[in-house]
C-alpha cells in the first residue's frame, strides 16, 4: 500500500515543485557554456559597438547618455529571450524524450508542473540578466533609481516569457518549432521595443504601433526602474505585464489540463 497516503496533497505538490525547479536550474547550470555565455557575449558586443563606437557620436537619448539608455534594454532582452527559450526547450525535450510522462503520472496538479517550469525559466532569465548587468558595469554605472520597480519588472517579465515559452513547448512538434518564435517574433519585438531608441523619435503613427508591442512596456518599465524616467507610465507598464501573465498563465494551464501535445 502507498505510504504517501497521509501526506497532505499540498505537501506532495510542494516537494514536487521544488524538485522540478532544482532540476530545471541544474539543467541550465550544467550546460552554462550554451546557456549563459552566449547572451553575455552578445550583450558585450552590443555595448562595445552601439554603446561605445556609435553611441559616442550620439549626444543623448531620452535625456540620458546613449550607453546608459541602451543597457536596461539589453538586460531586458537577455531576460526575455532566455526565460522563454529555457522553458520552451526544456519542456519540448521532456516531451521529445518522453520523460514528461514521469510528471504526468505523478500525483500532482498541472499547476505544480506549470509553476516548476516557469520558475526554472525565471531563474535562467534572472541569472543571465545579472550576468549581462555585471558586464555592463564595465561601460556604465548601473545604479537603479528604484530598486523595487527594477526587480519587480524583471521578475514579472521573466514570468511572462517563461509562460510564453511553456505554451510554445506544449505546441512544438520539432526542434524547429521552438526556434521559430524566438527568431521571428521575440527578437524583432525586442529590437522594435525601444532598446536602441526612444519612441519619441518615431512618427506619431509608428509610436502608436509601438504601443501594441508588449516588449515596449517591459523595456520601458525596467528603464524607469534604472534611470528614473522612460517613455511609458510605469503603472501602465505593470498593468500590461500583469495582464499578459494572467492571460498566458490561464492559456498554459488550460492546455496542460486538456493534455494538448502531451496526451492522446
Amino acid at each position, binding site marked *: *500500500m*502507498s505510504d*504517501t497516503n497521509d501526506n497532505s496533497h499540498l505537501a506532495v505538490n510542494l516537494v*514536487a515543485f521544488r524538485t*522540478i525547479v532544482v532540476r530545471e536550474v541544474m539543467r541550465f547550470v550544467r550546460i552554462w557554456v550554451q546557456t549563459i555565455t552566449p547572451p553575455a557575449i552578445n550583450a558585450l558586443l552590443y555595448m562595445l559597438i552601439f554603446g561605445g563606437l556609435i553611441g559616442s557620436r550620439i549626444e543623448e537619448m531620452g535625456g540620458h547618455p546613449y550607453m546608459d539608455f541602451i543597457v536596461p534594454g539589453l538586460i531586458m532582452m537577455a531576460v526575455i529571450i532566455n526565460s522563454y527559450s529555457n522553458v520552451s526547450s526544456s519542456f519540448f525535450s521532456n516531451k521529445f*524524450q518522453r520523460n514528461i510522462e514521469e510528471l504526468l503520472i505523478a500525483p500532482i496538479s498541472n499547476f505544480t508542473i506549470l509553476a516548476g517550469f516557469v520558475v526554472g525559466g525565471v531563474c535562467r532569465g534572472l541569472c543571465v540578466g545579472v550576468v549581462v548587468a555585471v558586464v555592463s558595469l564595465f561601460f556604465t554605472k548601473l545604479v537603479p533609481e528604484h530598486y523595487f520597480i527594477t526587480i519587480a519588472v524583471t521578475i514579472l517579465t521573466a514570468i511572462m516569457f517563461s509562460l510564453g515559452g511553456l505554451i510554445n513547448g506544449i505546441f512544438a512538434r520539432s526542434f524547429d518549432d521552438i526556434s521559430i518564435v524566438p527568431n521571428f517574433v521575440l527578437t524583432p519585438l525586442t529590437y522594435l521595443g525601444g532598446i536602441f531608441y526612444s519612441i519619441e523619435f518615431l512618427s506619431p503613427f509608428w509610436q502608436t504601433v509601438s504601443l501594441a508591442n508588449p516588449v515596449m512596456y517591459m523595456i520601458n518599465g525596467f528603464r524607469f526602474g534604472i534611470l528614473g524616467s522612460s517613455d511609458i507610465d510605469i503603472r501602465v507598464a505593470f498593468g500590461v505585464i500583469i495582464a499578459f501573465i494572467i492571460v498566458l498563465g490561464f492559456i498554459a494551464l488550460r492546455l496542460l489540463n486538456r493534455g494538448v501535445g502531451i*496526451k492522446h
Partner: protein
Amino acid sequence: MNALVINDLVKRYDNGFEALKGCNLTVEAGDFFALLGPNGAGKSTAIGIISSLVRPTSGRVSVFGHDVVQEPEAAKRMLGLVPQEINFNQFEPILEILINVGGYNGIARNEARDRAEHYLNQLSLWDKRRASARELSGGMKRRLMIARALIHHPGLLILDEPTAGVDIEIRRSMWDFLQKMNADNGTTIILTTHYLEEAEALCRNVAIIDQGSIVEQGQVASLLSRSMVETFVLDLDAAPESPPLLDNITINSLSDNRLEVEVPRGTNLNQLFAALERQSIQVMSMRNKTNRLEEFFLRLVKSQ
C-alpha cells in the same frame, strides 16, 4: 478491495480509430495478473488510460476505488507504471532520475535517495548509478524502469511488456523480484507479455484482450487446461502426395517438406508416422514448436 476496476472503457483516438471498444476488467488487490493479447489489441491504450497518459473517450476506470478522471491524484498515488517504451531523460544520471521521480511523488530527497539505493541494489544497477540512461543496455533500462515505478511504494504496479528483449537470466531474476514484491509487500501486479510461459510462471489470473475487447478472463490454470494442444514441426525427406487424414491430428500447414501438426496433448503420434511410412516418407527431424501467446490466443479465439 479491488485494485483496478474498468467499466465499459472506450477509446477512440483522434484519427477515429477505436482502440478500446467497451472493455470491462476487474483485478483484485494482491493479485498477480496478466493482460494478454496480440499486437495492437489495445493493452497499452488501456494502461495509458489507467495511468492518465491517455484520455478515455467514455467509460470509467478506478484504482483502489479512486476514479482516474475524477480523483486523478489519489489514483496516481497508488499506481506505479513501467511503460512499454523507454522514457528516460537520456542525460541525467540514473540515481538522479530516481530521486527526482521520488520528488515528483512528494518524497523528500534523503528518503528518495535511500529508496533509490535499495531498489538499484535489488535490481543490480547500483554500480551504474552515475551512468546516464543512454549508457545502459536495453535490459538495464527495463530494470531501471521497474525501480522508478516503485520509488513511491505503489499499491498497484503495472508493467507493459517488462521483459521484452531481456535475456533469459535477467528475465528470471526479474520474475523472482516481482514475485517477491507480490508475496512480501502485497503489491498488486498487472503485466502484459507476449511470452505465455511468463504469464504461466507468474500470474494467477489472466485476461485476454483482442481488438479492443476482453475476450476471456479467468485463472491462468484453467485457461491453460483449455489449450492442451501441442504443435510439432516435422521435417520430411520428401513432400507427401496428400496430407494424411487422421483422427485428432490437425495438419495446419504443409509446405514442401515440412508439416506443422497440432495434436491434443497426450495423443499418440504413431498413426502419423505410420501414415507417412505408407507413403515412403521419412521423418528427418521433429521439434515442439514453442507455445507462444499468439498460437494459444488464436486457438482460443477459434474455439469461441
